């Protein structure tokens, strides 16, 4: 059996469907011809790695594992006529059920992404919730009408839930206009002679995410031009950057880069 270099990243899978979808849809799309055996093995390996599972989740994981193992076993059987057709059919049924559940789960995963998009858009506006000012306060008969202890508790929780800090003093409030051209220029000044530095170091002083993104684009630009070497030893790890060009070429780079505006 070809040993598929299978590395399930150290993600937290939120359940068996999550894991299985990840194994089949994501990985298979990349490797296409992945065998059922490999999926089952990866699934079992992941299951073994999960140290604490509450019983309810474990059961669900195990049920699915059982179906998978059965599928795998069936596939490895020599394909002769001794197979009990009833057993076979029930296995197909189980499999179809699993498939259906996976598809349903996937559907809602994608719907969730869409909800997040709605939410992100709506979050750009803040509602006015000021209520009548003091001129009208005495008119209302009972401001607490209908308010329950639970409402009060919910309000308390809202009030003490951490929220974004007001950043009036810390930020330059003007919209950030970061240009890749500027970032390239900065990097051309910083990098030669700096040796090998990490992307994190390069962006440590930046406050706004956009600035970080622009720096990243600038790095890619320099990489494209063969002026830096990029190296990311670990997936999602820090990127190491090393200047390999001559300092004099920096100027010509500047002219070829488009400006991005925030």
């Amino acid at each position, binding site marked *: 059996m070809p040993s598929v270099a299978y590395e399930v990243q150290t*993600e937290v899978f*939120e*359940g068996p*469907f*999550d894991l299985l*979808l*990840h194994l*089949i*849809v*994501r990985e298979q*799309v990349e490797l*296409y*011809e*992945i065998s*059922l055996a490999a*999926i089952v093995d990866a699934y079992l390996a992941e299951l073994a790695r999960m140290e604490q599972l509450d019983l309810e989740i474990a059961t*669900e994981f195990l049920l*699915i594992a059982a179906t998978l193992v*059965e*599928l795998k076993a069936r*596939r490895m059987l020599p*394909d002769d006529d001794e*197979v009990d057709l009833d057993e*076979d059919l029930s296995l*197909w049924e189980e*499999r179809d059920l699993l*498939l259906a559940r996976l*598809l349903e*789960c*996937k*559907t*809602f*995963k*994608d*719907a*969730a*992404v*869409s*909800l*997040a998009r*709605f*939410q992100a858009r709506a979050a750009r*506006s*803040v*509602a*006015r*919730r*000021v*209520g009548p*000012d003091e001129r009208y306060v005495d008119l209302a008969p009972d401001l607490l009408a209908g308010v329950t202890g639970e409402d009060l508790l*919910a309000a308390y929780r*809202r009030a003490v*839930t*951490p*929220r*974004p800090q*007001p950043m*009036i003093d810390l*930020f330059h*409030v003007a919209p950030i206009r970061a240009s890749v051209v500027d970032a390239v220029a900065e990097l051309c000044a910083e990098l030669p002679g700096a040796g090998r530095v990490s992307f994190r170091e390069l962006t440590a002083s930046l406050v706004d995410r956009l600035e970080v993104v622009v720096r990243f684009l600038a790095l890619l630009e320099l990489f494209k031009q063969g002026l830096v070497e990029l190296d990311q030893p670990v997936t999602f790890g820090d990127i190491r950057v090393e200047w390999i060009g001559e300092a004099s070429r920096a100027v010509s780079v500047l002219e070829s880069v488009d400006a991005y505006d925030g």
Partner: protein
Amino acid sequence: MVSEPETGEPGEPESAADAHELAPGLLEESRRALEAVLMVVDEPAEPGLLAQLVELPADAVEALLVDLATEYESQRRGFQLVRVAGGWRFQSHQDCAPWVERFVLSGQSARLSAAALETLAIVAYKQPISRAQVAAIRGVNVDGVMRTLQARGYIDEVGRDDGPGLAVLFGTTREFLERLGIDDLSELPSLGDFIPGAEVVEALEQGLRPTDDLVLDDEGSAGDEAPGDSGHSVDTGTDDPGDAQE
């Protein structure tokens, strides 16, 4: 300087509100009343309530509000009048988000985790739904997530199942609509839009096929495993569960 807008001067009869043939004076009075009242509502004001208040037909009020919203937009105000969660409200203009974010502490902007979002999606599309039904779809226990969503006002109990267990049923709240910036649930994309495409179905089918070759001839037609033609370019459309919340 800010462009001087056309003031309440009657003149352009193409406005929707004018179509209701209200006397210009009355129209302006109603417009002012609406602006004044909307200034003090703390949740979206239903058109019916507003109509009662200014003693105009609901559709006339609606038309006035649409006109107002357009007017603010054309005057490039920093605020906007929007219809959301079945009512009308003032809110800061989305273009001004960078400033408002830095000034106003908005508790609701805390993001939901991927798990919470998935759970929320299930409730939104399948409501009314019990906790156990949600758990069955997600394949995990959802008690904690459901509690969080309820505490944060996205979902609430909406009734009880008729079945023997009398399970509590959940649905989304008006606040959910507000936070998603939609007027009602029908504005959500249809669930059908998210049903996985053929590639994904095929990948799943393929991955979980019990037999390498076709023992059961009538099941799964042959030749669907041509690895070459469906290439790598399949877009699964999903993000990693881990980074979906970013």
